[in-house]
């Protein structure tokens, strides 16, 4: 497998519109990045970029809160440890998901189910919104790590926190997040899904499922978006 990035700068700056995937998109556009690959290279890079773009906006508030509770000398290490733990989880998820995606696309092509595929994905994502396992994971996302311990232990605790956060975020977000990908939809759909997931976290209340309806509604909206 080989992987490389060829960049041709055309000038201009990547503009931040407050969303990770837009940043990534603008960055890649501005620099006319071309990714060439063989084997798993391209899907691995795509997956990594997609996770970073969609999920970093969601965990950014957690990182800000964590940073304020860590000794200055350890802040960088601890934040990197959280991100590393978080991305490890998502990279591990990416491998089987990639295989599933291949099988899924092959099945779609074999049975000519191009119109049914998005329907199935989004129906699953909508159904998942109401699953108690998802709600429990969403609750756990709000719990910060206990950071007591010798100074060297803080970074380790932060890494464990990243793993836990990655696991819980995956349980909460994965179906809605991958539905646009499986449905072959444009970037804007991922942008909308990211913000719906973020809004759900901010607005969630006990015994009130209105914020989850935001995610469900966006998934319903996804049914109307044609593939690229």
């Amino acid at each position, binding site marked *: 497998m080989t992987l490389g990035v060829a960049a041709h700068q055309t000038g201009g700056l990547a503009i931040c519109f407050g969303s990770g995937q837009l940043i990534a998109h603008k960055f890649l556009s501005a620099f006319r990045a071309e990714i060439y690959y063989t084997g798993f290279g391209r899907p691995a890079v795509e997956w990594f970029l997609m996770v970073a773009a969609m999920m970093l906006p969601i965990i950014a508030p957690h990182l800000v809160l964590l940073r*304020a*509770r*860590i*000794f*200055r*000398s*350890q802040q960088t290490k601890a934040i990197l440890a959280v991100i590393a733990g978080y991305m490890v989880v998502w990279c591990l998820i990416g491998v089987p998901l990639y295989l599933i995606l291949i099988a899924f696309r092959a099945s779609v092509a074999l049975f000519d189910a191009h119109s049914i595929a998005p329907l199935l994905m989004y129906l699953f994502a909508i159904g998942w919104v109401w699953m108690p396992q998802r709600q*429990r994971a*969403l*609750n*756990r*996302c*709000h*719990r*910060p790590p*206990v*950071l*007591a*311990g*010798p*100074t060297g232990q803080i970074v380790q605790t932060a890494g464990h926190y990243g793993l836990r956060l990655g696991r819980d975020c995956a349980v909460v977000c994965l179906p809605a997040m991958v539905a646009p990908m499986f449905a072959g939809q444009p970037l804007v759909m991922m942008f909308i899904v990211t913000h719906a997931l973020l809004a759900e976290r*901010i*607005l*969630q*209340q*006990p*015994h*009130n499922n209105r914020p989850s309806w935001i995610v469900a509604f966006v998934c319903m909206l996804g049914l109307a978006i044609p593939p690229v």
Partner: protein
Amino acid sequence: MSTRIRQSVYNLPSGDETLLWYGRAVADMRSRALSDPTSWWYMGAVHGNPNLNPPAGANQFWEQCQHQSWYFLPWHRGYLAAFEAMVSKAVAALGGPADWALPYWNYSEDLAQNPEARFLPPAFRDQTLPDGSDNPLFAPRVQAPGGDIGLGDGDVALDALDEDEFTPAVSFETGFGGPRTGFSHFGSANGQLERVPHNVVHVRINGWMADPRTAAFDPIFWLHHCNIDRLWEEWRAADSSHTNPDESAWLSGVTFDMHDGDGTAFTFTAGDMVDTTQILHGYRYDTIPTPSPVVVAAGRGVPEMVAREPELAGSSQAPVSLEDDLTSVRVQMQSEGVRRSFTESAFPTPVNVYLRLEEVTGKGVPADYEVLVDLEDDDEPPYPVGRLSTFGIAGASDTSKSHGGTGITEVYNITRAAERLRLTVESTPKLRVSFRKIEQRPVSKLEMPGPVPVQLPDTEASSIQVGRIGIYFD
């Protein structure tokens, strides 16, 4: 209808029937079905639900109380107004006055003026009335001969009124009214008024009042919160600089659901709660002569963030269980990597020094703790810096709730203590933080009369753990 006047329960005129009608209305509301939004049971569960099965549609209204949040005061104001409307309607239907208003219990009143101020009001003390019937205003509470529930000076102190800001811009300060949050049933840091006297009085009364899931089933709850609501008005009236937040996040960021006196659903925001004369029937307090200003400061926008956020300078080495009457913990200072101004010398370089108790979790109905700091090798007595109240700790520790069992966070500005202790980066390895348990008297046992059994959620032994103790400088 004219604006109602809420009066001190100890200043009600001789022969006044406010509490008599309150008791009758309580009994009437208890006779209503759980599914009735104006029933005692439904309204109690709006604050917290111990073990009741929610009727259809109730989830939107139950377990909505706001704590450890800048919504603490406005949410409870709306809750009180709705309750007052329900009681008032019941009173009128029973033949009482049409302008019934909720009295408040001013336990912070000067003892020279009212020696009984800290005692439970007489109408709430006895289990039975003179005629032998059940007293509807009685509830399981601390055993209190003569009404003395053991409130001390520190329990009813009004230091919160000295706070300059409702919610300060610095994230660690919780101010008078509590920290910025979204919807917060539990799980953040207490504002100063919420910590003392609100939380402390809850735990001192004990019984149902000690747990938010049962607190609103005790009739004294409403007089206690009426006083807290009054103190909010008093704080605002005390100084023109005492203003409510003018940020849109506070004014309209979260919408709350409630039922009015007719049982009709309505919604409100914190911004709807700034003028007491405009809330449902409208009310004001007898000790605050003029209605509070309605207008919030215009043009201030989002408060400017202070450039220097507090920085962690010391931390405990492991979570601490508060099992004994006195638990002491050494806080280790990290001298490397902190800002130069800290290491170069020391006090009084930092503007403020904070003690932060993080992830305080637990279960049961525990006591409160007095928090003290001192240096291990000096002869000075420990310096008290505040209370650690465990009110609501079980709910805040429940991992099945939306906050994920985060627990409670308490922040104390210990700058004065640091001054006295000559706290420096070099000396903080010797800093000791202690938790002294405040003795609790036993609770009287009582089954609530009525169709719905309400029990204390936790009767097992309590346990409290402090996840981390942090010292922060700014």
